[in-house]
């Protein structure tokens, strides 16, 4: 009889025990997974200098070279690198991000901005707060930024114009006949961006004595999607245009199939030249749709810019106010080499 009681108790208690164990064994990882992860996290933390890069947007692949090389340089210098920006260019959001960096008291920041009042104000605020501020790609010379690193944009504009003139000459298109003007459209990001305005100035000055006449200036708000839309629409309405000067490479980040009007126009004799050199743009040049490309050394903007800022913060080495990076010219002769050098930025 007593033996039966023990069996009955075991019979009831054992399943309860097993069920409880099963439940708790499921609960424990769930309760602890994130906490464990946090516990591991504290072991590697150590005080590092933090330098933030703020490109104009994340969706513009032109900055990927700078991003890659600044990261590599950051590892080399043992610097915490932050690369932050709104995904799509938005002045207000970009300034909010700069404000948050000020709030978080980063050691330095390298910005691609416009020389406008709002940007100048936030740069000066950061500088006044003891944060070293530099600019890359696009400058705000009227602000209290420490230095600017980038190409000589005026020269880049001239180089693009020279490439155009070479093409016209090679193809025996008379660009000096005042009776037969070559109508030209210029696509830029936003007016007031010093770098872009300088490129236009360089281009304009180079073609001053020719019959190449700028009749339209279109702003795409630094948006890749908008640039494609505006370009296609423009060519649909103005197929008689002779020349297009792309101040930046915005529309060429999309596949060529997404630019049917542009393809037709280019294949029908339209001459397109531009600044910014990357894999997709080189493919278009290889196909003859773009006649001449001038590239910036974005990698140097990333690595050298970071190093200059680091040296300033670490050693107090004040860099030159303008650090010029070189231009890269894509021509028939070096196009294959450049296609090897510049990797596609999309995942296949």
């Amino acid at each position: 009889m007593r033996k039966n009681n023990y069996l009955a108790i075991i019979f009831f208690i054992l399943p309860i025990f097993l069920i409880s164990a099963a439940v708790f064994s499921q609960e424990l990882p769930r309760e602890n997974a994130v906490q464990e992860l946090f516990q591991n996290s504290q072991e590697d933390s150590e005080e590092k200098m933090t330098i933030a890069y703020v490109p104009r947007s994340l969706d513009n692949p032109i900055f990927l070279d700078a991003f890659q090389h600044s990261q590599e340089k950051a590892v080399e210098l043992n610097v915490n690198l932050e690369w932050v920006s709104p995904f799509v260019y938005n002045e207000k959001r970009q300034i909010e991000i700069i404000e948050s960096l000020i709030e978080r008291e980063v050691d330095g920041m390298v910005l691609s901005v416009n020389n406008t009042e709002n940007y100048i104000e936030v740069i000066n605020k950061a500088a006044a707060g003891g944060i070293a501020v530099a600019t890359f790609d696009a400058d705000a010379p009227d602000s209290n930024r420490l230095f600017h690193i980038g190409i000589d944009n005026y020269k880049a504009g001239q180089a693009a114009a020279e490439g155009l003139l070479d093409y016209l000459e090679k193809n025996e298109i008379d660009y000096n006949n005042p009776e037969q003007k070559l109508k030209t459209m210029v696509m830029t990001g936003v007016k007031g961006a010093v770098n872009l305005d300088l490129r236009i100035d360089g281009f304009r000055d180079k073609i001053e004595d020719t019959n190449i006449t700028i009749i339209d200036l279109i702003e795409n708000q630094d948006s890749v999607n908008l640039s494609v839309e505006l370009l296609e629409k423009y060519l649909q309405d103005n197929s008689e245009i002779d020349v297009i000067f792309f101040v930046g490479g915005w529309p060429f980040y999309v596949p060529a199939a997404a630019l049917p009007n542009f393809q037709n126009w280019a294949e029908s004799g339209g001459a397109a030249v531009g600044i910014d050199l990357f894999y997709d743009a080189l493919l278009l040049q290889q196909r003859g749709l773009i006649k001449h490309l001038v590239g910036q050394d974005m990698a140097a903007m990333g690595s050298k810019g970071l190093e200059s800022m680091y040296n300033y913060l670490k050693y107090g080495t004040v860099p030159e106010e303008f650090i010029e990076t070189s231009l890269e010219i894509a021509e028939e002769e070096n196009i294959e080499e450049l296609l090897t050098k510049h990797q596609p930025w999309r995942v296949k």
Partner: protein
Amino acid sequence: MFNKLFKNIANGIEIHTIRTKLIISFLLIGLLPMLIFSFLSYNIYSGALNDRISAYSQEMVKRVERDLEDYILDIERYLNREQDFYINQFIKLTQADDFSNNRKYIFRIWEDFENLKQMKPGLEDIAITFQDGRRISSYGLYNIDIENIKNMLYTNDLENIYFTHPHKNYLQKEVITLLKTYYTDIAEEDVLISADIDVDVLANLTDFQFGEKSYFFIADKNGRIIFHPEEDKIGKRSFFYSNGFKNREVNYNDEEYLLTSTFSELTGWHIISMASAREVKAELNYLTEITIFLTVLILVIIILLAFYLSNSLSEPIRKLQEMSHKASENDLSVKIDVSGKDEIAQLGMSFNKMIRRINKLLEQNVREQKLLRKLEMESLDNQIKPHFIYNTLDLIIGLLENNKIEEASHMVEALGKFFRLSLSHGKEMVLIRNEIKHVKNYLFIQQYRHGKEYEYIVDIEDLEIMDKHIPKLILQPIVENAIYHGILPGEKKGLIIIKGYYKDKSIYFEVIDTGVGIKADKVREINDVLSGKIETDDQKKYFGLRNVDRRLKLMYGGASGLTVESEFEEKTIVTIRIDRRGGN
């Protein structure tokens, strides 16, 4: 004191009048059912309305709970990534510091996260965070203070999902972060995948326009506020929390609120609606106002009707009362203008009839009084006959001549009393005692004059009648008739008996003489004349009997008066009946 005050008030508003009583009656009859009906209707409807408000509030918090849980489940789906190729590559290449190959994955992740942000309003950011605080999100690559996040974590019913309290994100925006661990097969390090939800989303989810002062707030299971329209409340413990948020009425900032809550098992949050009682009960207040307005309106109508009806009904009665009062003040010229055929009109007609009747009776009474005075005067005249006075005075002179001074003195005294009692100071009514004395004086004088040819006896059986009043000069004319028409014509000595007694509530006198008597036909004629069966033109015929009889009938009615009985040559009995119940 209160009784006195109440009486004063009651007197002041003439509560004793029929009009006031009618008004009160009408008001009670009209108002009581109406007030009871209003009260019951209001209570029933307000009860139903309260139930509806409560159900509506409950429905709203449930709806917020559903929307909130749907939203959180959507976010959870974004976080529930398993072995995402791009994320895995990114983690592996990041750990290897292979920036050249990593950048396309980073770009892809940025695009991916940005697309999710565009798809889900309120999703402020999605991020992958390494254990050292490095983070990739739709804003790029940056570092966070991972210890700070750790301190804000708490869990709930969602599997492997952690929540943070509201905090400022990278862009200094107020967000709530959902985190979970992302396990990767191709790298050593597991990472966190997280989503920042803009606190404004909670504002949108709870943005029901159900009043200016009404609002929602959200608190965690310990009552700590996660969302509140007043931002300074966020992060603090709600003082409405007490092992949960029980549905009840609460007072906050001098405002009554209906607190309704529900608990979301999924998020571990309490969703609380604070509905301004004043706003949600606006309908109830409207109902109250309508009820009060209608009640007052009906009250006024009932009061006006009560006054109108009371006046209509009581005015004829008031006029009747006024006329009656005038009539009671001797103004018998009053007359009510009667209109209608109702009971009050009939009462008015009866009143007019009564007044006419009173006027007639008064005229009749005046006539009767005049007749009475005349008969009295005639009786008095008949008594003070000159030859009675001369004979009596001659008798007194004779007595004096015969030196019968004492007798003469008695005679003078009797004569004086006789006349004094006859006049009785002009009074109409005299005590029977004095009337008997008067008759005795007369009999004394006459007995002396006639040489004691008869004797007389005065027998009053019931002495209590001696103090009763009767018209004066009732007995003397009858006694005089007994002497002159009964005793003196006979040759034998006679006897005159005067009896007085009380019988059947009437006073009776009998004057009996043992004289010559009266023949039967004559007796019949006399009684017929006295009863009015026959009339006589001769005013002097039976003058004494008729005078006394008419005076008694005028004063005491038809039952009073004289009857004559006689046995010829034996006796005559004249019975005087005074029925004091009759007459005026």
